[in-house]
Structures are given as C-alpha cells and as structure tokens.
C-alpha cells in the first residue's frame, strides 16, 4: 500500500514544484469540468490560459488585475510568515478605496487645482492610511482583548462593504447619476498616470513591482523581518530571544493593512475613477490564494498574482465566449488552493510503496514546526 514517509528535512525542490503540480492538476480537473459541461475543453482552457496572453491589450489587462492581487498578497505574506492570520484584506482594501476615493471626491468638488503629481501621492497615502486604520482595529482587539484576528478581520470585511454601500447610496451619491449608487467621476487630475498608452494599465503596476523588491529586502535582509519570521516559526525561541510578539502583531497587521489599502486606492483612482458598491471583485480573498501559491515569497507572489489574474480574465472570457457563469473562476481558485495544500504534503513527506507490515513513521521535529506555519 502507499505510505507517507517523513523526509529527513523539508524538500526545497518540492516546495517549488508543488504549485506547478497543483496547477497541472487544476488544469486537468478544469478540462474534465469543461467536457462535463458539454464545452470543448481546449476552447475552455484557451480562455483561461492562452487568450489572456494574446496581444498587448490583453496583457495589460492581466497586469492591471494582478496589481491589487500582488499588493494585498505581499502584505499577507508578512502576516502569515509571522503567524498572524489576517484574512480580512478585502475589508482593508475597501477602506483604502474609501479614503482615497473620499480625497479624490473632495478634490473634484473643491476649487483647488493642482497637477496629477501632487494628488497621486496624496491619494495613495490616504489609501494606505485607510487600510492601516482598518487593520489597527484587528490588531488592537487581538492585543488588548485577545480576540481572534481571523474572526475579527473577516467580520470587518462585511462592515467595510456596508460602509461602502452606505457612502455610495447616501452621502456621496452623484446627484446627476440617475439615482445609480455611485459617486461622481473623479476629476482627471486625480487619475493615475497610464503606463502603456491606450490601455488601462497605470503606474500602480510599476510601484507594485518596486515594492516587491522592498518586501524581499525587508523579509530576507532586515533584522525586523528576521524577528517576525522567527516569531512565526518558533514562538518560544522568539520569546527567549526577546522578540516582542505584540510588536510582530502590530508590524505585520500595519504592513498588510497598508498594502491592501494602497491596492484599494489604486483601484479607485486607476481603472474605476469613481466609487460604486462593486469596487472589489474579491481581490482581498483571491490574494490569500496568491500568497500561498506564491510560497509567501515576494517574487513567487508576482508569478502567482499574474496567474490568478489570468483566472479572473479567463472567467470573463468564458462568460462571453462560452456562456459559462463567471463564478467558474471562484471554483478554479478554490480548487487550486485545495490541490496546492494537498501537494504541499510532498514537501515534508515522500510517497513510498510499502508492503503491509507496519512501520512507525515519525516526522522529524523540523517538519512539525514548519507544519504549524505554512
């Protein structure tokens, strides 16, 4: 029978191969699903994996949608490496969109005129602060009241969504908007500069790529980043070394809240240019998958962000070309994460064919500690 046998140490190769195996399995399941739905699997898979890469316009759309995913996932990687379970990036994203959108609306209605190079930094900072404020509630309740950051951050997503709804339905509603729940279109001076002419891709993507380098340096070349990761992998060792667990909580929550808020600001001032109830299409949740598929590593996150962005676009194409519900994207996303987690078993274990005689299998201590923190 097949047996799982503990490896002497976690396999580096498998750690990199696991997302690829998971992706391959997802493709196989997807092909089966298309066949089951009576669609040509090749056409279906093409919509997800080929069409989004065809031509400059499509490529810029992939990069555009990858931007919020990568930003949110960068922050979440710091959280998860510190063993802080912030799953409410979606709410922090919405708050960033609200604060940035609020500033942009104020600029639109006020008489102050300034260039784009004045407003863009201010709007992005407003977004960062908004996201941080929302994450601060989570950190405060965890710190002072010992309340689970998982549940609090998630509950705040629903609160943030209702706050967006309230703002666009009541105080910020465009009086000339035919009663649609949306704000005025922001003044052109608040829009993000486009990166590629005749596309929606904005400078936010360039900022995001620069931040990938910053996060790499922070996680792997800074003392603070090292402290956070020790706290995540071995809390007892971190305590013994005098690394503050409270400090790690606050640092990682502020960073991830700020990143999600920045993503929200870029979405509001980038492609949307106004606020509606549908600012986010679940970017904050998809970013969790991006984070894991990217191995909690800044560079890996860029690739997984682009991949999951292709999923999003593939879902839209599947809807328009094949008449499949857009929600198919969600099925594939969940499936990918499931399969990834299953494949990750191969990092610490190898599969062995074994006669039925019983052999006690003891995983090494190193394997156990890495299990506790993905």
């Amino acid at each position, binding site marked *: 029978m097949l047996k799982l046998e503990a490896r002497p140490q976690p396999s580096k190769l498998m750690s990199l191969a696991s997302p690829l195996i998971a992706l391959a399995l997802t493709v196989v399941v997807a092909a089966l699903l298309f066949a089951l739905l009576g669609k040509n699997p090749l056409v279906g898979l093409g919509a997800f994996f080929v069409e989004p890469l065809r031509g400059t316009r499509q490529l810029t759309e992939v990069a555009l949608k990858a931007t919020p995913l990568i930003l949110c996932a960068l922050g979440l990687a710091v959280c998860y490496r510190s063993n802080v379970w912030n799953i409410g990036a979606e709410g922090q994203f919405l708050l960033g969109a609200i604060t940035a959108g609020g500033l942009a609306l104020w600029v639109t209605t006020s008489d102050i005129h300034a260039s784009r190079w004045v407003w863009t930094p201010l709007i992005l900072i407003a977004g960062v602060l908004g996201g941080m404020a929302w994450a601060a509630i989570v950190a405060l309740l965890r710190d002072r009241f010992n309340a689970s950051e998982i*549940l*609090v951050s998630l509950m705040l997503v629903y609160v943030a969504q209702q706050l967006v709804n309230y703002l666009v339905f009541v105080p910020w509603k465009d009086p000339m908007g035919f009663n649609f729940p949306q704000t005025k279109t922001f003044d052109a001076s608040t829009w993000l500069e486009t990166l590629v002419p005749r596309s929606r891709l904005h400078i936010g993507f360039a900022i995001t790529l620069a931040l990938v380098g910053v996060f790499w340096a922070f996680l792997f070349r800074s003392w603070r980043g090292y402290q956070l990761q020790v706290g995540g992998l071995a809390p007892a060792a971190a305590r013994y070394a005098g690394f503050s667990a409270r400090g790690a909580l606050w640092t990682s929550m502020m960073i991830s809240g700020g990143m999600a808020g920045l993503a929200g600001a870029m979405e509001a001032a980038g492609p949307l240019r106004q606020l509606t109830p549908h600012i986010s299409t679940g970017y904050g949740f998809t970013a969790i998958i991006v984070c894991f598929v990217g191995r909690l590593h800044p560079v890996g996150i860029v690739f997984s962000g682009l991949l999951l962005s292709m999923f999003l676009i593939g879902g839209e194409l599947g809807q328009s070309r094949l008449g499949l519900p857009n929600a198919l994207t*969600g099925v594939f996303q969940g499936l990918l994460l499931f399969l990834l987690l299953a494949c990750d078993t191969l990092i610490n274990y190898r599969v062995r064919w074994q006669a039925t005689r019983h052999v006690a299998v003891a995983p090494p201590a190193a394997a*156990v500690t890495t299990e506790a923190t993905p």
Partner: protein
Amino acid sequence: MNEIALLIAATLASGTALALAGLGLLLNEKAGVLNLGAEGMMLVGALAGFGAAYGTGNDWAAFAAGAAAGMVMAAVFGLLVIWLNTNQYATGLALTLFGGGLSAFIGVNFAGKTLGDRGTSGIPGLADVPFIGPALFRQHPMTYIAIALMFALAWFLYRSRAGLVVRGVGESPESAHALGYRVRWIRLGAVMAGGALCGIAGAYLSVVRAPLWVEGVTAGSGWIALALTTFATWRPARVLLGAYLFGGVTMLQFYLQGEGVEIASQLLAMLPYLSTIVVLALISRNPTWIRINMPASLGRPFHPGS
C-alpha cells in the same frame, strides 16, 4: 404586545441556522479540529437544499441534501487536515473559497427562483395561546429540532462514553492514541457530523428563511457560528443562547427599519457583524478562561506514532 411576540418568533427563527451550524462546529472543535470552512459548507448545503426543495417540494429532502453536501465538503477537508496534515486555517479558508465559488457557479441555474411559502402550522393547542403561541409555538419544526439537538449534544458530550472519547481526542490526542482509540477516524467522524449540521443550517437559510436563491445567501453566518463556539466557551447550551442573541440582533435591524428609525439601512446591516466583534472581544478578554475551556489540541495536527 403582539409586535414583541413576533420579534421573539423572528429571533428564534433567525437564530436556528446559527444554532445548527454552531452546534456542529462545537462538536468539530471538541475533537480538536478547527474548520474555517463553515461558510463554504453552509453555502454548498444551501445550494443542495434549495435544489432538492425546488425539485421535490419537500423540506426534509432539502435538509437531507444539505446534510449530504456539507458532509462531502467536510470529508474533503478532513482528509486533507487529518491525513495529509495540511494547515487547518489555510485548508478551511480553501473550503470557504471553493464552496463560495461552487455555489455561485451551480446556483446560476436557480438565480431568481423562489420556493412557495413554507406554511408553518404551529403546534396544535399551544399555537393559539395569546402571546406565547405566536412567540414560541408557530415555528418551523427545525427550530425545535435545533433545541432538541442542543440537549442531545450536551448529553452525548458529557454523559455518554463516546462523547468522553471525542473530548479526550480533543484534549489530548496522544493519550487517546496511547489508549488505543483511532484518533484520526474519530476526528473525521466529528468533522463530517459538523459538516452535515452546517449543510443543514445552510439549507434552512435558503429553503425556510429566504426562500429564494441569492448568491452568498449565508452572508457570513458561518463565520458568526465560528465565533459562537468561542463566545459559548465550548458549551452547547451557551451556543444556543448565543445563536438567539445574534439572531435577535439580525432581526432588530429589520424591526428598527419597520419602526421608521432614521438610520440608513446599510448602517443597520452592520449590526450583526459589529456585535459579533464586540462580544468576541469581551469574552476573549480573559486569556486564562479561554485556555481552560478551549479543547487543548484545537487546531494542532496529530501524527500517530510521534
């Protein structure tokens, strides 16, 4: 007076879904497994239940379908976390994301479809008693089943031998293993039972409460149910009480709107989530108390032989 009776009735009806899911998750957690996939299991249960009710017109078929769907989802989760030792948080999240996607994907076929009104006949004799009748005795049978389930679960956990074993597995899987109990299978059983109850809770929401199909019909109930177990410090009776408390808060927003209170409906809709956060913070404030009551191995993987 009559309005109060209706508010009480609505509170019971609205709390029932939370009670069913919360009791299921309690059983899960007593065995030491934390399933963050509650929301996903509820959504898939809601979809399966709605489909069954739409096809057969029978509520019980709907609950059975919901239970089966929730159980299948829970089995996948159980296989991953119990045998492959995947991270419980991440796997639970995957279950929620997958369940959300799957229910939205298949649910497209039911978009906008409605079921007939569930006639609640009430308990003969008692339903006509003034005030008490409309408040307590004109409920869907599932309301009473949820209450009975609380007693059954309390009896099972604290009075039966099997319940003792489940609690033992949750407190110290190593000791239970040393005594010869099959920790993994017991955990899988608890997880699947929890999944079945979450599925029934979902079906109750889409079939009895709604009764129409809307994407994301559970609106975070699964997460509130997860908070409930902490809120109840892992006691069945307190789970039920907490469920009615949050059910009451949910109904309060509609009541306030009906009374013409000058607060925007979007702000009132925040109430259930805000109150969950506040209550969770208040209950968790004392770390010692939580540590004493929480199943000791909650969220920790178990490797037999280590």
